[in-house]
């Protein structure tokens, strides 16, 4: 492989990986606190893609207003889902809340098919994001270069929030021991809502960054990224935020290189992620950065 192609692939892979990382953070945070795989997270991400289309193509908002609008709309959607579909089941077995999450995912896909029709919709141009930019021999839309920067900035902001603020301390407490945190006077519901707000706004940002270099959004476009990002979260160690980012990068880069190095394997790029997951779970079930948890009887 030539140096230029190599760099081009690195740039693409890192960019894809950072978009994945942002979604994976949402998974890992919700899992850390509720012990729930939020199957609907990928579909929330897909809805954010549609919100962007509406904000720009239908309402004609300028791109900076549109981004705020998309984040807000996605957060409202996510919090609503938490309040309506997950909160009533908090005391019930984990299987039923997982089934509820699957139900929400099913509902979101069907609603998107109904509201926006099943046909793929073109993703609008967001200001300068799609302009092709050249560094040396590598040319890519600006968004490809921006994505990793945005992800790292958000990661550090989030790490500060979790490790150095009172809310973050409460979050860590809830994820360590739900019951004990409750007894210590932590408002569980507020913490969970905050978690969903963070997760969904990151998903919204990720949607804008992910869909910008891609032409289309369709109702199923959230399923695969959603599952892959959960795999990313598991890979990094579920419940661990930097782990999720590392996992996202690994999957994004590995996927890009798999397609670039073995073009014949293109069809397997989705499958590859899951092979990675199964291998990972066999040899290091707690993930790269995860802590070992003793099983309680």
């Amino acid at each position, binding site marked *: 492989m030539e140096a230029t192609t190599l760099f081009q692939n690195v740039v693409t892979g890192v960019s894809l990986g950072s978009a994945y990382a942002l979604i994976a953070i949402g998974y890992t945070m919700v*899992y850390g606190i509720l012990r729930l795989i939020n199957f609907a997270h990928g579909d929330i991400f897909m809805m954010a893609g549609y919100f962007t289309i509406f904000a720009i193509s239908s309402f004609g908002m300028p791109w900076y207003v549109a981004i705020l609008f998309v984040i807000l709309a996605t957060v409202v959607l996510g919090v609503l889902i938490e309040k309506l579909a997950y909160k009533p089941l908090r005391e019930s077995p984990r299987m*039923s809340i997982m089934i509820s999450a699957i*139900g929400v995912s*099913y*509902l979101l896909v069907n609603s998107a098919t*109904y509201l926006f029709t099943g046909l793929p919709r073109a993703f609008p141009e967001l200001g300068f994001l799609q302009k092709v930019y050249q560094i040396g021999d590598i040319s890519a839309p600006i968004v490809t270069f921006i994505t990793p920067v945005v992800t790292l900035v958000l990661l550090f902001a989030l790490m500060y929030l979790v490790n150095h603020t009172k809310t973050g301390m409460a979050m860590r407490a809830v994820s360590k021991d739900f019951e004990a945190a409750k007894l210590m006077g932590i408002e569980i519901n507020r913490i969970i809502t905050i978690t969903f707000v963070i997760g969904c706004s990151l998903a919204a940002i990720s949607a804008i960054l992910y869909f910008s270099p891609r032409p289309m959004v369709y109702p199923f476009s959230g399923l695969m990224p959603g*599952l892959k990002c959960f795999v990313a979260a598991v890979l990094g160690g579920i419940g661990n935020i930097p782990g999720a980012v590392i996992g996202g990068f690994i999957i994004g880069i590995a996927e890009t290189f798999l397609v670039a190095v073995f073009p014949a394997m293109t*069809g397997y790029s989705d499958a590859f992620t899951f092979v990675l997951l*199964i291998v990972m779970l066999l040899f290091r079930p707690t993930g790269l950065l995860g802590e070992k948890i003793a099983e309680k009887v």
Partner: protein
Amino acid sequence: MPMEFEYKKLNKQTKMILTILLVLACIIVTYMLDKGMIGTSYTVRIVRISVIYALIGVSMNLVNGFTGVFSLGQAGFMAIGAYSVGVFTIPVADRANVFYLVPMSEKIVNVELSFGTALIMGGLLAAAFAALIGAPVLRLKSDYLAIATLGFSEIVRALIANNQMWPFTNGSLGLKSIPSFNSLFVPVIISVLGIAFMVMLINSSYGRAFKAIREDEIAAEAMGINLFKHKGMSFIISAFFAGIGGGLLAVHLTAIDTNQFKIMVTYELLLIIVLGGLGSVTGTVISAFLISFGKEILRWFDAAHYIGAWQIPIFRPGLRMVIFSLLLMSVVLFWRKGIMGRKEFSWDGIYNFLRKWPWVVKHILSGDYEKASREKRKVKSDGRATDKAGRAQSRLKIKKQKEEDSRAK
């Protein structure tokens, strides 16, 4: 009418007669549908899809509802079964038409199997895959297992659609001209046999081990149940029948492609078994019929409707699935037991269910809602209520009875 509703059992003979009547009725209805005496070919199609979904649903319930292993790989196993049947039953003469882009591999182009052989092969192949992935995957805990099995079903789809597999599976073009059923009895009988086998398994000592694992894995292991062996057995048998169900589905549809085995199919199946009741075979069967027919009835919402000349804007394609998923969500949230909970259909249950309404209505009319709901919940086979207050009451009654007996002596 006595003051309180008493649970009564039917005698064995009556139950036997009722069962025979029910079976006869089913056979007659199937026969009449098959011969076109009642319903249309459209109804026959819905019945066919219902029995196929019932079989796959029960197979999924065996793992999820009875063994408590949250597996989401059903679509993958279905795809394996469907493609085995599809590839080998397309008539040799039609194969060049189907594989028009990449010719079929010479190794299998002249191999045509009968429907039965291909179906069993599909089931066995699915079971073999289950054994292969079960070894690593079944060691995982619930949520990881869900994701790993989900991933597996995607891997299967990718394998089938991949370039190297084109000469065998026709890749993303899918298969068509699969010969259809020659009678409605074929899918019905296969489904009934499959479900009967699984019911027998559930009622055997293996089934009791499955249920013990579902209730408490650690306790079950302490009681000497081999977790891995039993989970694997349940998983493999479930995959076998999912493969068979997938094969039937291929024959039902006559044209298949990999998009029909997306994750959404597994989600839909999961919602079927949740509606029927996780851990109830009869519930799953009822729910499969209910959902297949319900989805067709809801088609009304997809059509355009007019008030005068004005078209009501909300009615357009897709609304049906939104309403359908909202209904399922409300089941998941407010009616978690589903139709049957963990119970099975029984004549006693039906008999008493019908009998107790006068009492329930009486209590409601007299304004005693608490009593009404207590009557409604009286379901235990020995006439005891399932709630605490009712249990205390019936204990008291038994005590009184004993005292009277001893006094009589």
